[in-house]
């Protein structure tokens, strides 16, 4: 059941969100990673400028979250916004939660002075790639390369 989009609230994550964030991620990935999310909420939950960990909720129910940061000069790139993670409660997908989170993060990036948003994802992660493409994102000028060591 989708929520009314006008009731979606976006705010910065706090330590109190750890349980709900860990649970949502676990529901999607099948992995329980509380230490990982505790560290990210600590580092991205508003302690440092240009780092964002945003929560979407209605009332007290967590609907999803998104995380990103403005980074500069990696791979020769001028400052741009990077999205590292986005997760939406499976029952709430296609209801505008992801779009609300994406828009809120992009607004913070724009307010921070950058004009490009970027992300990287697994080629076979069709669901999340479709989401980013639905937001108007397309392949950029970089290609990821790797090798077995």
């Amino acid at each position: 059941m989708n929520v009314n989009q006008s009731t979606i609230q976006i705010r910065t994550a706090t330590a109190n969100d750890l349980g709900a964030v860990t649970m949502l991620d676990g529901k999607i990935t099948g992995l329980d990673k509380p230490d990982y999310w505790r560290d990210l909420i600590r580092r991205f939950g508003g302690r440092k400028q240009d780092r964002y960990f945003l929560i979407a909720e209605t009332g007290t129910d967590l609907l999803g979250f998104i995380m990103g940061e403005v980074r500069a000069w990696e791979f020769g790139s001028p400052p741009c916004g990077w999205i590292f993670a986005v997760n939406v409660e499976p029952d709430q997908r296609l209801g505008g939660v992801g779009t609300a989170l994406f828009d809120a993060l992009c607004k913070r990036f724009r307010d921070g002075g950058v004009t490009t948003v970027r992300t990287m994802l697994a080629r076979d992660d069709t669901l999340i790639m479709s989401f980013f493409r639905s937001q108007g994102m397309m392949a950029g000028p970089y290609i990821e390369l790797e090798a077995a060591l």
Partner: protein
Amino acid sequence: MKLQMASRLALFAILELAGDQERQRSAGEIADAYGVSLNHLAKVLRDLSRAGLVEAVRGVGGGYRFSGNSKRTTLLDVILLFENVDGHAKEGTNGVKASATEAALSLILKEIDDTVRATLQSITIDTAVKLTHRLSAPKK
């Protein structure tokens, strides 16, 4: 990447019809809009109809309308009705024993195939329609 004509016609038709789902359009209107063969388009529309992506509406003002789920159907879903997109990596030398060179070339072509497939599989009809609208909007 070059799509076969049937795939291109199918995508033209689907994007045209999905762009305005309230409106029905005849095969002739779509063929005229894109300057393509009506006979070929009509055959493609029959295939799309069999796949449940378009529906023929009979009677005055009849034509075709999009009947799929534009947020679930991807460009790859449409193209696979008409052609295989994973062809390159499988190209061999017909009877010659596979060599390291052939294996290397196959690996490189597979990388291209994988990228093509991932791109087409991640773009829904809804996203492609939005892109079409964005490109057709007057520049500010």
